[in-house]
């Protein structure tokens, strides 16, 4: 039995001048996955296998994952995979998930150009359930209970009947690797598996990059009559357009009831 964790490296140009000679670093979402996998491995008493689908340049970042506590890492890659979409990569990864793995832990959407869809595509290929935003896994005898974060400060507890893909919630604090672990990670052998006939090409064609789309929700509308101080304040608040409050409640008796009525109209109480 084992716990598998999906690893992804992202490009960080600042690392180019570093000692590893690589500009790839372990993605933050993958670090969250490693933290959760360590918790799962402790709860289940099973070893952790890291799985990555990336080029050779990822290896220093994958060694960082070993330094954090991953037992071994398998990388699956071929040149044809460079243009593969999330489903193609999920198919390739599904081919190297250990047959004895009970849990696959993945991170959320990576911070570069990742989609966050791969864990769910992998779950569908494997025929496993998936749970998002997982913050904890514990073992009660033979059964495993997984706690997930939901909106509005809710926590959902699931009982796992068998295998599952768990997507780690953001914010896991990674342990600081010891020097001994770092040295061992440098010497560790990384497995390489070529995916065969798993990549479905030609479903999407890249046509080019374009400028960023504006995400501004409040347009800056400086008033001609505004003072210099008013304009500066408007700029510093990120362009939040001054507006007359859409609803003013008089500070008279019963304003609490008025406010509750307003919240009820908005579906908040």
């Amino acid at each position: 039995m084992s716990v598998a964790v999906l690893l992804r490296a992202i490009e960080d140009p600042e690392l180019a001048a570093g000692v590893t000679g690589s500009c790839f670093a372990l993605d933050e979402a993958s670090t969250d996955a490693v933290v959760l996998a360590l918790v799962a491995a402790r709860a289940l008493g099973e070893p952790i296998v890291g799985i990555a689908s990336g080029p050779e340049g990822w290896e220093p970042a994958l060694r960082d994952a070993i330094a954090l506590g991953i037992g071994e890492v398998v990388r699956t890659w071929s040149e044809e995979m460079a243009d593969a979409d999330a489903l193609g990569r999920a198919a390739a990864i599904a081919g190297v998930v250990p047959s004895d793995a009970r849990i696959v832990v993945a991170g959320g959407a990576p911070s570069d150009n990742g989609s966050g869809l791969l864990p769910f595509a992998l779950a569908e290929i494997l025929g496993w359930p998936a749970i998002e935003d997982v913050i904890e896994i514990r073992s009660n005898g033979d059964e495993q209970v997984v706690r997930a974060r939901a909106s509005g400060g809710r926590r959902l507890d699931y009982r796992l009947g068998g295998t599952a893909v768990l997507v780690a919630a953001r914010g896991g604090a990674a342990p600081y690797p010891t020097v001994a672990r770092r040295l061992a990670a440098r010497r560790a052998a990384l497995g390489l598996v070529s995916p065969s006939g798993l990549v479905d090409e030609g479903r999407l064609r890249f046509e080019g990059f374009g400028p960023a789309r504006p995400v501004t929700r409040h347009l800056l509308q400086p008033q001609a009559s505004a003072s210099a101080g008013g304009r500066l304040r408007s700029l510093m608040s990120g362009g939040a357009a001054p507006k007359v409050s859409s609803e003013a409640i008089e500070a008279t008796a019963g304003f609490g009831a008025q406010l509750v009525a307003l919240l009820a109209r908005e579906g908040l109480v």
Partner: protein
Amino acid sequence: MAGRVLAVASQAGSAAAALAQKFAKENRAEADVVVLSGKLLPPGAWASAWFAPGAEARHAGELLPATADTYDVFVFDEARPGKEMAGRLGVRLGLPVVAEVVSLRAGGDGLQVVRNTGGGARTATLAAPGGRAVLVASSTVGSPGGSARSATPPGKIDVNSTNALIELIGTAQLGPGEMEVTEADVVVAGGRGAGGREGFGALEELAGLLGGTVGASRVAVDAGWAPYSRQIGLTGKTVAPRLYLACGISGAPHHVLGMRNSSLIVAINMDKQAPIFQVAHCAIVAKVEEVVPELIGELRKRPPKAAERLEVMAG
């Protein structure tokens, strides 16, 4: 004419619905919008309900493949369980899946999809030659408007069917002191005019009644009335809850930056010239010590929010 689009909304103000409607309008296509769960997300003029209360991604997974002959493009929201549905449907139907989609148009030999990449630093244009795809709309697309076409569900699903591999065995609602400000639907924030440490006690009670948590301005944190983990603003956390209740907060620019994207901002302040009223949807010019106890009294007369939520979850 471009292909038919089905948007499956999993949140209010669905970006998926907005993207599908925009595509239909610009490309003379047909778009249907359905909501995932009729109880958690009530259908309105912009969507029809296909799924019974309590429906989850796995239930949608049973129904949606049956629509493969009817629709060419499927659009989902980023919010749970949109991504799970998109990933699973893409595998089932063998269609390309694209996330963070900001625009969509029919052209050339199929479909042109523009998505955010590099954390929104630029966009990438992708072509789906077959004109068919599964998409996840970026939350920056906007909200739907107008009305949706009436779409006929392809069948019925049993939301009470159990999945032997996974079972929801319990839910818990965190209290106002345990919940992170970034995950709460309701944030009751206090500032210099909140009434000091005692005033924050009342805010915590109010937050509990609203099913939310307590936030604070930098002044209140500096004064020791609330911990730093509760600080909202440029030097604290950025929040975008459904309700932001600003109690005795003046609205300094560095605070406004951390809360301006909240859906509903209610501000209580004695000073009617306070800048917070420039970003508030609802303004109350009064002392916090007068408003908060009255509001608590009114809310106590109503059933507790948390209990309602658990009932909804039980489905």
